[in-house]
């Protein structure tokens, strides 16, 4: 029976969002990324004894996740898109830093609420209900191309909004900390 120390469990829990983002950056398919996240978590639990407490936990977890992604790709060979890890890995370590993730999430929820009503409806179907483009197209009776374009614009709006507001939120978080 594998048991995990409380401190280690806390560390695993704390990096879940970063870990998922990292996996998704290598393999942009949410369903497959979720599967790999679960597999990675299990391996992290099993490898507690191999972790060097003086090392960087996130980096170590990312290396395990990277291996799992490669294993998944080799096994399934169905993903159209999977990036070589060295393309995004250096940037990912910085962008998916736990502290930064917290700040982005805070801003994102504000920006999500600022989306126009129609966009929010499409966003809900895609992001919350996990409907496919085809399903959304049938539900709202619009062509699939139009749905793709709307989703592109939704992502653009969220990206711009988060970029604009993130500086302020990070400054506020630093201020509260000090």
């Amino acid at each position, binding site marked *: 029976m594998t048991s995990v120390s409380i401190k280690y469990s806390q560390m695993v*829990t704390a990096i879940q969002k970063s870990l998922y983002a990292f996996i998704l950056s290598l393999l942009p398919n*949410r369903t497959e990324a979720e599967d790999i996240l679960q597999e990675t*978590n299990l391996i992290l639990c099993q490898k507690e004894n191999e972790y060097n407490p003086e090392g960087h936990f996130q980096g170590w977890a990312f290396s395990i996740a990277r291996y799992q992604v490669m294993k998944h790709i080799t096994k399934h060979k169905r993903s159209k898109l999977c990036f070589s890890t060295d393309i995004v890995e250096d940037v990912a370590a910085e962008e998916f830093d736990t502290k930064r993730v917290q700040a*982005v999430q805070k801003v994102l929820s504000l920006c999500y609420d600022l989306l126009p009503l129609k966009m929010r409806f499409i966003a809900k179907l895609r992001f919350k209900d996990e409907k496919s*483009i085809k399903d959304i197209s049938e539900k709202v009776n619009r062509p699939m191309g139009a749905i*793709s374009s709307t989703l592109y614009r939704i992502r653009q709006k969220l990206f711009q909004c*988060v970029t604009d507001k993130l500086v302020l939120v990070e400054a506020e978080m630093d201020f509260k900390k000090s």
Partner: protein
Amino acid sequence: MKTTTQHFDKLVSKALDLTITEIEADQLSSLLDQNPTLQRRYCKTILLESLIHWEENENIDRLEPKIIHFPFLNYAFSLAAVFVCLFSAWLLHNFLTQAPPPNEVRVAPSIDHVAEELTADFPRINRDPLTDNLDSRRKILQMATEYSRGITSRNLDASKFTFRHENGLNMMSSESMLSTPSSSGVLPMVDGEMIKLGSMEIDPVSRTAEIVETLRVYDVKRKAGNFKAADAVIHINQGFSELSESTEFILSLHALSTLEEDSIIKLDSSEQSLFSDNDQSTWERLDTAILLPDGTDYLVVALSARRSGLGALNSHLHEFFGDELEVSFVGI
């Protein structure tokens, strides 16, 4: 540069919607290669996408009307009716000389057995999804699972559910499927068998783990008005946990009604929870009761086990048990 960025963003958006072509995927890869600005932009977009995913898990909308539509159920009913007609004629004279024994337990893996049950218990043609055919029973099970707690993603195998006739009611049960002898140092309470719940599903974000098992689905349609309430009793136990985490067991009853042929709603439900101790040698009693609203067609009995906190992360390694389930109806 702006045009390149826009094109790049469109490609990323397509990749995330799984509508990207092979050629576009190659374009995206080559744009990312050796371009730190686009790499950073890509990671930012991915982070937003993944965080929306987490937001989704943290803000589940529970207020939507709980109605399930089965668009193909009409076809299933029609096929089942034709099927039943054919078999009824053939089986009728057999049952004039050979009545089925009461309370007989049958594992009903084949459609033939279902037809036998149907003809034995209801010599007339009916449109009852619980007894019509395996496909209909599978749908009822899916529905029952949805209403038990609505969180499980496991695919239930309807053919492994046992079909029983008890207290004048038709019933499907998963107890045989979940049955196990002693396990993880836990001995069955009375005889040599007990119910072992499946592996817990872990949510690392909320640090919770849960498993829900639909134990029984009763067809109470024909007895509508004959009884007013039902109560259920079960005993629960768990394998030893090194972290001494206690587990919350929940026994729940759900009264469901068929609105039309293809939609079902939940009329009412009741549940009782109990935190199990970490002692394998003791079984703890858990019971709940429900007043059955008018129009109740099905009664679902479900048992769930839930853990939260740090110990939830390795809950899939532990085992959880139930035994001696008894369901009784008041007023039959």
